[in-house]
């Protein structure tokens, strides 16, 4: 019996427990007793008690099985092998697993005891596992069934269990974040063992090529990330200069001026922009906008590189417009009509009403929308990779080619890499910086929104 069929059996027992519990509760109440809770609440309680402990056991078993078995196997290996390096032991263990799976062929007699032990263990654990899960299931079922009585506060108990389940679910999200942060931190820490953090944060030269052999000439790699930060900021800034005014103004048009017919078609049309894959924006930026800017620049006598921050920023700005406009449109619509009426009632024009009453009232939401757009701009990779280039120039000139943090992370990790070279580890350090930046941005956005909330609600 494998894991999935076991799971199905537990679920069937669980469903059975529900009906059993409900019917017992009904039967008791038919005898004229006054039950504390409704019959289906007794049923749910039965199902929860039957299912949850068994499922927890199954999951825990899955997590713990491999390390325990490995530990037991190592004991069966030849003594010489046990003294070897951890990496070699690991390799041998996986060999044992392979041999156990393809029974009969054994090239290495010294491993035979381990292989046989593994096969035996596998049989035993399966039996043990399913036996334990099912008996836990049944024990809980019987115990809960016995407990059903008019005095059992099934609803209260059920709500407590559900509460715990909800808590566990939200815990998963938090734990995942912590896990991601921990893994990035660990790798970044290794990077900072090799490269001085100050050189990384404040160095102005980025050239992550590292010599593959010790005797290779040149390229010891320099990891000054300032050009990347500058490139990210430059491109995001261009994008926001495009997206914020256009997005905001289209939101104002859609919510305040457009007739319901125009709005019905214009809003989804605008939101289509958000559905276009960023790679397609990348084509557009690299093949249409960048050459256009180059030609335009040449006509004006400017020297424009064929991959420019301006092209990437422009197209990214267009991509972000729907974020700003759609969210702002929603918040502007949420401003109560009574505020507009109050302003009109004083003889204000539509323009004055929008500028001085509606927009200030919607400001927290608009700031939130813009912050979301900024995080999106900072995290965007594809458009920049295709249109802005990979050259880490430290420049404020939008006509030059620049590169961003995300693009460098991608280029550092693409292809076969050794995971102990600073080149690869640099990606994690960059990731950490990116993570912290967006974290701070979100935090600031939240504070701004709260400040205005307190004032105006």
């Amino acid at each position, binding site marked *: 019996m494998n894991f999935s069929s076991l799971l199905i059996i537990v679920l069937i027992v669980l469903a059975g427990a529900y009906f059993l519990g409900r019917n017992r509760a009904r039967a008791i109440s038919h005898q004229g007793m006054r039950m504390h809770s409704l019959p289906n609440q007794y049923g749910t309680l039965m199902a929860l008690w039957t299912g949850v402990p068994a499922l927890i056991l199954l999951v825990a078993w899955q997590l713990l099985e491999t390390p325990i078995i490995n530990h037991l196997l190592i004991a069966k290996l030849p003594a010489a092998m046990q003294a070897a390096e951890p990496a070699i032991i690991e390799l041998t263990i996986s060999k044992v697993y392979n041999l156990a799976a393809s029974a009969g062929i054994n090239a290495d007699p010294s491993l035979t005891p381990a292989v046989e032990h593994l096969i035996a263990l596998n049989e035993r654990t399966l039996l043990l596992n399913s036996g334990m899960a099912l008996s836990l299931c049944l024990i809980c079922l019987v115990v809960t069934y016995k407990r059903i009585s008019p005095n059992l506060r099934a609803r209260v108990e059920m709500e407590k269990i559900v509460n715990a389940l909800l808590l566990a679910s939200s815990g998963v999200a938090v734990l995942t974040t912590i896990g991601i942060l921990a893994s990035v931190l660990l790798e970044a820490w290794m990077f900072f063992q090799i490269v001085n953090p100050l050189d990384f944060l404040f160095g102005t030269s980025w050239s992550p090529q590292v010599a593959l052999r010790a005797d290779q000439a040149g390229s010891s790699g320099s990891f000054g990330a300032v050009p990347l930060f500058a490139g990210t900021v430059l491109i995001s800034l261009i994008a926001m200069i495009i997206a914020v005014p256009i997005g905001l103004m289209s939101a104002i048009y859609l919510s305040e001026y457009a007739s319901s017919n125009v709005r019905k078609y214009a809003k989804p049309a605008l939101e289509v922009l958000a559905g276009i894959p960023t790679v397609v924006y990348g084509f557009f930026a690299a093949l249409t906008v960048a050459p256009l800017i180059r030609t335009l620049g040449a006509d004006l006598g400017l020297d424009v590189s064929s991959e420019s921050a301006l092209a990437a920023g422009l197209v990214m700005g267009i991509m972000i417009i729907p974020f700003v406009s759609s969210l702002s449109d929603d918040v502007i619509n949420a401003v*109560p009509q*009574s*505020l*507009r*009426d*109050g*302003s*009109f*009632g*004083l*003889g*204000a*024009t539509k323009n*004055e009403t929008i500028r*001085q*009453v509606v927009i*200030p*009232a919607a400001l927290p939401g608009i700031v939130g929308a813009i912050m979301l757009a900024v995080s999106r701009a900072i995290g965007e990779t594809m458009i920049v990779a295709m249109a802005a280039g990979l050259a880490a120039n430290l420049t404020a000139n939008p006509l030059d080619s620049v590169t961003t943090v995300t693009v460098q992370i991608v280029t550092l990790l693409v292809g076969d890499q050794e995971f102990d070279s600073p080149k690869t580890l640099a990606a994690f350090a960059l990731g950490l910086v990116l993570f912290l930046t967006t974290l701070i941005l979100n935090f600031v956005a939240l504070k701004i929104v709260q400040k205005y909330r307190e*004032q*105006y*609600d």
Partner: protein
Amino acid sequence: MNDTNSMKLIENHKTTGEPFSKDVKISARNVDVFYGEKQAIYDASLDIGKNEVIALIGPSGCGKSTFLRTLNRMNDTIDICRVKGDILLDNENIYGAHVDTVPLRARVGMVFQKPNPFPKSIYDNVAYGPRIHGLAQSRVELDEIVEKSLKRAGLWNEVKDRLHAPGTGLSGGQQQRLCIARTIAVDPEVILMDEPCSALDPIATAKIEELIDELREKYTIAIVTHSMQQAARVSQRTAYFHLGQLVEVNPTEKVFTKPEHKLTEAYITGRFG
């Protein structure tokens, strides 16, 4: 009394009582209002005299608020609303082709059912109107207007130390008086009030009623109310609306003691809500 009965009573109805006055500020003649296909007001003619408080009463959905909102064209903000007939402010038709709603609403201000202070400071709420109409030449002048308006609305003593705190932080009654201050800061000639006390507690209501009585010296006021006691306390004339018809207009005392029309009598004695 049910709707079918009352409908018979107002079929081809001519307003009873004294809808017209001598010293006229606003005069409405043969006003019909439509929301799309549905007619909300039928042929209403009514004068509002200078420096009087006129109360518009009637059961819910009778058209009294709609009528009030036609007086400064607030109904323009509703797409499907159409108004027929003439409304003259100082003998000038406010629905004329060349009339701009902006100066009109500066002359005919409005206070709404729910207090709706702007998300600004108390000072900026009051200064909003004078600023957009360019009524003050200097900061000092603006300060004076704000102070005068808040004093006239009876709010000055409560807020003079926190003029720059948000207006939304005031209590409901204070907010409504702030909205009145905001309205009188523009120095209108007429103030329309749409159930200004319905969201307030009795003490705040009493304050506003007192204020309305004082404001009468300077302004013409039309007030929609659901409270008959309030109509009796603050107004000189009362107009009773029913199912879109202007049933009866008479001096307030007469309406509440010897109503001419059966429907008015039924309403003030509480036979419909």
